[in-house]
């Protein structure tokens, strides 16, 4: 199995985080939390194709990005005529009702 070229790996990582609007800061925090060892500046430089990183660090960055992508909420769905305010129901259930007025 041919290994993915480093530049291509960085380019597609940049694409992945860009599409999901994941900031370099957020990417680095996740990468750091799962054991990453290089700093945020280096991560940014790598994502922009400016520097090279060891293979394991590159895979950990890819993994951090994928974890964040997987956690994204699905995009909102459109309401029907008979359910205009489903979001309201969610809100109402955590309020205690004050019956005086």
């Amino acid at each position, binding site marked *: 199995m041919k290994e993915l070229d480093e530049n291509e790996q960085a380019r597609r990582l940049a694409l992945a985080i860009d599409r999901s*609007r994941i900031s370099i*800061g957020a990417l*680095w*925090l*996740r990468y*750091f*939390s*799962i*054991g990453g*060892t290089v*700093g*945020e500046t280096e991560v940014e430089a790598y994502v922009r194709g400016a520097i090279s990183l060891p293979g*394991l660090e590159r*895979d*950990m960055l890819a*993994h951090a990005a994928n*974890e964040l992508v*997987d956690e994204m*909420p699905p995009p909102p769905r459109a309401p029907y005529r008979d359910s*205009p*305010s489903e*979001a*309201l129901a*969610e*809100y*109402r259930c*955590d*309020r*205690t*009702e*004050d*019956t005086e*007025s």
Partner: protein
Amino acid sequence: MAPDFELNALAEATGRVRGELLTSETAESAVQLLAEVAAELVPQAAGAGVTLIRDGRPTSTGSTNSTVRMVDAIQYETGQGPCLTSWAASSVVNVVDARTETRWPLWAAAAVEVPVLSCVSVPLVNGRDTIGAMKVYAVEPNAFAGETTRLLNRLAAAASALLAHIQTSETPLRINHQLAEVLRIRDLTNMAKGVLITRGMSAAEAQSWLLEASRRQRRPVAEVARDLVGALKPEEGADEGA
């Protein structure tokens, strides 16, 4: 390993996030200013208000007069009203006549007393978050045409992006939670690596192993690490695999 370097980087990242924070006083003055702009934009309004809301509670409020403050206060006391609905549902809410309003009976009854009979509330939306609502009130029923909604929506779109950066006093707490979570996962990952090292792996091999297992199981590294650490009973030791 370079623990000093890591700690510095973390401190720097945290400091930078904190540096971007503005005080709650700044948030108050920003929403106040925005309320005044909204009132100017809609001349038939008796008053305008802007509220930043989190978890159903107002965090910063700006209003052009005491009528607005009164009508707003009723919403948060009763937990119902056009603004809260606008925030919760992320949509424009129009009250044509409070006397015939059935969606929020407690709020409507109180508003009629003030009197405030009509109202338009638009959500302040930034990305995936709805951070609050902006509203105009009128004494007369049916005071606002579709044009008002359009104007307020345009103002809301511009203001939301700016307001999202203005943080309330709760934000440092939220950042601390985030930081604590990052450190918790990092701790767990390191403990899991320790478990793997006792099975004869090097630190780098342990890191690779965790990554591979997480990819294979399609579960976050934190969960894989927790399983590994959780399976470890103090009296049994970690040498079952190797």
